[in-house]
């Protein structure tokens, strides 16, 4: 199969969906003239015009709020957040409007919109341009949150998100944009929202991960395989509400669980995954649940500190080894 980058995969998804449905449009900062900071919108204005690929003012509340309003008026907006770090500005629109409108108005309307939010560490992006904030949204009913870990899922998941009638936050990791991988050319490449994927089957231990940290999870699995451990790796893909069933079934089989994400460990999504397992399958566990995530500090600028902050493959490997002592 041909290989394309994660960034190209999202671009294809946009193109195909926008061709299929002319109620879809995109807006965000610096997406039309420049094509997005990571090239993820490159060339779209040529195909769809600047009526449907819209450069906005630096007005994050208006970007999200007007996307919601446009959705109420029958469109299917895609709003680009530039950096996930800027979503704090729009939290009211996200949690008090986007997430609740359908429910609190008794199902009279729907909000078929997607927020694209590039997240994660990028070489010394520092405290305000490096964050992974997905955990906040797990506690917010009415939204779905997804995060692909590879080009194929990036495409299929973005297409599915755009087609969904529910409001969706699509976290795309900045470090993944340049990564290449096989992506089918089939038009109906869709990744089911709400469903996790067993990315690698195994019997001794389960790693639950998602987004960029899937690279580390798979790398750790390779290393551990050589030491004789059979590692199952689950890619959550949908982070909220996540696929509890797939996780629980795996743990019931492997009896061990490690959760890894790039976001700060404390208060992160790993806690929710651990809690669900501790509620539903504790009797199956033969070892403590281990979480791997970033340290509990803002993201420091200096390369040495950023490296100390970042969660690493060896923490996954060491964690799993410790389960078998």
């Amino acid at each position, binding site marked *: 199969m041909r290989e394309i980058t994660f960034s190209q995969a999202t671009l294809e998804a946009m193109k195909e969906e926008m061709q299929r449905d002319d109620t879809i*449009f995109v807006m965000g900062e610096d997406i039309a003239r420049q094509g997005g900071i990571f090239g993820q919108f490159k060339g779209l204005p040529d195909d769809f015009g600047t*009526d*449907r690929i819209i450069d*906005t*003012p630096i*007005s*994050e*509340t*208006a970007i*999200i*709020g*007007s*996307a*919601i*309003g*446009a*959705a*109420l*008026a*029958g*469109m299917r*907006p895609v709003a680009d957040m530039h950096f996930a770090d800027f979503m704090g500005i729009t939290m*009211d*629109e996200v949690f*008090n*409007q986007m997430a609740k*409108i*359908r*429910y*609190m*108005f*008794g*199902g*009279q*309307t*729907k909000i078929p919109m997607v927020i694209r939010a590039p997240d994660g560490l990028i070489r010394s992006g520092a405290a305000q341009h490096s964050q992974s904030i997905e955990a906040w949204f797990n506690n917010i*009913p*009415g939204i*779905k949150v997804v995060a692909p870990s590879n080009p194929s899922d990036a495409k299929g998941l973005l297409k599915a998100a755009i087609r*969904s*009638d*529910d409001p969706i936050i699509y976290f795309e990791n900045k470090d993944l944009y340049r990564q290449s991988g096989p992506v089918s050319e089939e038009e109906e490449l869709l990744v089911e*929202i*709400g469903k996790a994927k067993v990315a690698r089957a195994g019997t001794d231990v389960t790693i639950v991960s998602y987004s960029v940290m899937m690279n580390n999870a798979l790398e750790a699995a390779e290393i551990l395989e050589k030491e004789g451990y059979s590692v199952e790796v689950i890619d959550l893909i949908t982070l909220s509400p996540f696929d509890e069933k797939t996780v629980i079934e795996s743990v019931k089989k492997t009896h061990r669980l490690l959760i890894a994400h790039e976001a700060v460990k404390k208060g992160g999504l790993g806690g929710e995954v651990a809690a669900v397992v501790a509620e539903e399958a504790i009797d199956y566990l033969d070892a403590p649940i281990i979480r791997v995530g970033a340290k509990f500090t803002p993201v420091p600028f200096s390369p040495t500190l950023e490296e100390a902050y970042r969660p690493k493959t060896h923490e996954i490997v060491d964690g799993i080894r410790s389960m078998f002592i």
Partner: protein
Amino acid sequence: MDKHFYADLYRTMYRIRTFEKKIEEFSLKGEIPGFVHLYIGEEAIATGVCANLTHQDYIQSTHRGHGHTIAKGAQTDRMMAELFGKKTGYCKGKGGSMHIADFSVGMLGANGIVGGGYTLATGAALAEKIKKTQNVSVVFFGDGASNRGTFHEALNMAAAWKLPVVFVCENNEWASTTPYQTTTSVKDISVRAKGYDVPGVIVDGNNVLEVYEVSKEAIDRARKGQGPSIVEMKTLRIKGHYVGDPEMYRTAEEVQKRFRENDPITRFEATLLENELLSRKEIDGIIREIDEEIEAAVKFALESPFPDESELYDDLYID
């Protein structure tokens, strides 16, 4: 303008007033749950503005949204049921006073977040522009709400892109317990229009015909693709901020005096009679009709069932 036009304006204003009085009564009795903000004394604004709109046009309302909802064409029985928290309400009892909406008439929702509506209305206008329709969108907001950052972001976006959205300020002099002038750097909210290169006008918000005329200009302008405006309606909040407000921050006499002199319904009635636009008999007919309608609405609400616990998860997700 024919008789129907005037009769409709009167009917709407009186419908709002009567609805609100009932709400006040049942709210004070504790039979309506939650926070309730009344529109009494401001009826001319919603009525005059919405008289320019069709059901294809949109409005975004506020925490004080019953008047807007009625003026946009919603039915009072389903509204009443919603406020009582009943299953037959517009939102199946999930919304209540601060979250009432009727999408079938283009009423996109009251909003418990002050200033939450600007960007939504702007987005609806953007949608209509992309779709190349002539539909417009109107956002109602208070003097207090004018200090939210969303005002600036939405109006700048709307002005930069000439979107068909009209910003209607209901300057009732108070934001909850706070006189707006203590927290707002300008006396007339409409002067803020200058910072966006759009028209800003001041209207006597208790004169329904003036409200109608001036908002018509702004709405027509929007329809023609000439972009947004601010229309500032000068009025006064007659009741407490919410039902039950002890109003320790102002004197009731002063407010009542101004209301007596400036009740938008009394004033309109006088105009109608003076200019022989409607007869006393015609007006009384409307009053009777509406009194009956609201009584029926109350009955409908009272007799409707509460939603069942099993409905809790309904309408959360579609897919």
